[in-house]
């Protein structure tokens, strides 16, 4: 318990040594873990496994400037990391990339990996990802699709310290899988297989490590970048759908314009034949319009009113005809009182051209005697003052307008889709496998031959 009584002095964090080749000071930042050190001054590889520092490979080169100098500290996700090592790697000298080793004594090791444009934060996995399908791996509910087939990669240059014996020329087999925002990398040699999970970093996250100028939209996009057009497209589709729906509703309920009260006309008592009224002039201003005519018969009961409409163009005498009827009945049966029908009738004529018109309404009242020879006139009794009101309006659904609106709404969406497909094709362009998802759309025969 004496350990609790007097807090021990903090452990020094670094071990200082001198490069046996060039003599410059080398700082060991993960003493006890580090095995290999690449001298930052001359690039010689040192063995620090034992107390005595041994020279493994001697180099006499000036270390090129690193984007992040060794010893730099940065915070990611609330944890501070120190850059302690740097590797230049490539596929036999082609397709180079860089890896920085990060260390925190309380959290172990992580990686910063960059292809020169985008950066990722890597963590070694202690478990093995599972196969979901032949081309898809999973960790929990994260999914990764195969992206780079296995190929041999090598270490080209070593600077700083590492927890294994690393040297220029070291080769491992490497394969990669990509998911939205994440990559999965598998490296293997004769003795060991290791899996690393990499998360794409934002420019702001890299600024924490002193790296500025990281492009927000690198081109071509890295394998694990989420298409920025995807979310836009999704939202755009929802907004456009809602707008179109609203437009439709608006047209159905309000687009017709107001009813104009064309006039009220008496319905003669008795069966006296057809009556005719002429309403006009009616003026229609649009090139073509739908004309709706409504008849209202407030007193209608147990009878019907036949209505023949003729819309006559004053200029060319062209006639547009329609027929309507308002009928209403009631009575009492074993189920009680009933009624059916309506005291109004509505008809419409589509595509009536612009012009001045007369509306000729021929109407004829009828009564229903329910099978009995009734002598009185029913609803058409003169004392009842039966009458019919005619109302006219233009409008209704204008298909053409709707189509124009739909095109206007879809244009930006098509542009978004085009950009999304272009992004996905560029993102998957480097993959060793066939494109999937949006990138598989709109492929030319030229693509197929690749």
């Amino acid at each position: 318990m004496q350990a609790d009584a007097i807090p021990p002095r903090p452990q020094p964090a670094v071990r200082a040594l001198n490069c046996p080749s060039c003599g410059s000071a080398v700082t060991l930042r993960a003493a006890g873990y580090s095995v290999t050190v690449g001298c930052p001054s001359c690039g010689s590889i040192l063995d620090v496994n034992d107390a005595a520092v041994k020279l493994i490979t001697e180099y006499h080169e000036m270390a090129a400037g690193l984007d992040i100098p060794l010893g730099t500290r940065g915070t990611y996700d609330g944890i501070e990391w120190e850059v302690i090592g740097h590797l230049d790697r490539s596929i036999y000298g082609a397709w180079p990339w860089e890896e920085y080793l990060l260390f925190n004594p309380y959290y172990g090791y992580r990686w910063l990996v960059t292809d020169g444009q985008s950066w990722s934060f890597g963590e070694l996995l202690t478990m093995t990802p599972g196969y979901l399908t032949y081309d898809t791996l999973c960790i929990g509910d994260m999914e990764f699709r195969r992206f780079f087939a296995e190929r041999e990669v090598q270490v080209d240059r070593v600077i700083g310290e590492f927890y294994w014996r690393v040297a220029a020329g070291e080769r491992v087999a490497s394969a990669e899988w990509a998911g939205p925002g994440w990559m999965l990398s598998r490296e293997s040699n004769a003795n060991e297989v290791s899996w690393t999970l990499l998360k794409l970093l934002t420019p702001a996250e890299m600024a924490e490590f002193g790296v500025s100028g990281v492009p927000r939209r690198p081109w071509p996009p890295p394998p694990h970048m989420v298409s920025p057009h995807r979310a836009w497209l999704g939202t755009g589709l929802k907004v456009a759908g809602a707008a179109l729906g609203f437009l439709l509703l608006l047209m159905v309920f309000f687009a017709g314009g107001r009813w104009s009260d064309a006039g009220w006309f008496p319905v003669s008592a008795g069966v006296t034949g057809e009556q005719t009224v002429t309403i006009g002039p009616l003026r229609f201003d649009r090139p073509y319009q739908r004309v709706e005519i409504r008849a209202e018969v407030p007193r209608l009961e147990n009878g019907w009113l036949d209505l023949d409409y003729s819309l006559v163009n004053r200029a060319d005498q062209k006639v547009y005809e329609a027929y309507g009827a308002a009928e209403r009945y009631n009575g009492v049966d074993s189920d009680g009182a009933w009624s059916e029908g309506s005291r109004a009738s509505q008809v419409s004529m589509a595509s009536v051209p612009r012009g001045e018109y007369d509306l000729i309404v021929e109407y004829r009242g009828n009564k229903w005697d329910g099978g009995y020879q009734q002598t009185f006139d029913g609803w058409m009794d003169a004392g009842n003052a039966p009458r019919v009101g005619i109302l006219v309006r233009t409008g209704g659904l204008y298909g053409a307008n709707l189509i124009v609106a739909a095109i206007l709404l879809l244009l930006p969406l098509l542009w978004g889709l085009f950009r999304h497909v272009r992004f996905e094709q560029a993102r998957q362009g480097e993959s060793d496998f066939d494109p999937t998802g949006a990138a598989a759309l709109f492929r030319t025969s030229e693509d197929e031959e690749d």
Partner: protein
Amino acid sequence: MTLTLNCPNCGAQAVFRSPALPCRVCDYCQSLLVRNDAGVSAVGKAAALPFDVSPVRIGMRGRADGIGFEVVGRVRWAWTDGSWNEWLLLFQDGSYGWLGDAMGLFMLLREEPVARVRAKALRRVIEGGEAVPGVEAQHGGVKYQVSDARDVLCIAAEGELPFTAPPGWRVYSVDLKGPAGECATLQRDRDEATFYTGRYVLLGDLEPSGLRAIEGWGMPAYAS
């Protein structure tokens, strides 16, 4: 249970906290002490521990699988390409386990009777043979894979231990990994084999208190 004796070499107090841990390294003169019926005898000398920045230290406390523990000892092992710590955890129930501290990763391991090992690849090692990396070995319902097999050397030790760990002690060590973070180690020296199974853990999951303070680094959020 705690027994306080004096180091026969330097006379300093040497505390033995558990009958399961009959060996220890004198905190003052690094003598290797073994407790016996006659008291305590020095059987050799441990080497000084090389400098490292491990966050674990003797006296650190924590909790694993619901049982509190204290770190009471450590063995430092090395092989041609690196070295690591095995911290000895004495649990409140009197049992002990190991916290492997290698390459920034931690493994919580408990000893299992070697007799329980049935896997062919491992039986061969117990009987003096060698293991091949990549070979599968099933144990306790877990499909392990041999990830490493090599000679390792004890380079230093401190605190209390269940065995003497003299510097230069050479053992053949086989590491195994399971698919979901399980791990196991089979060690064999000239006389006998021991088998440990467990899993990878995060130091923060062990609710550690009394971590080693390291200059220039803030204590982690998980430290209590």
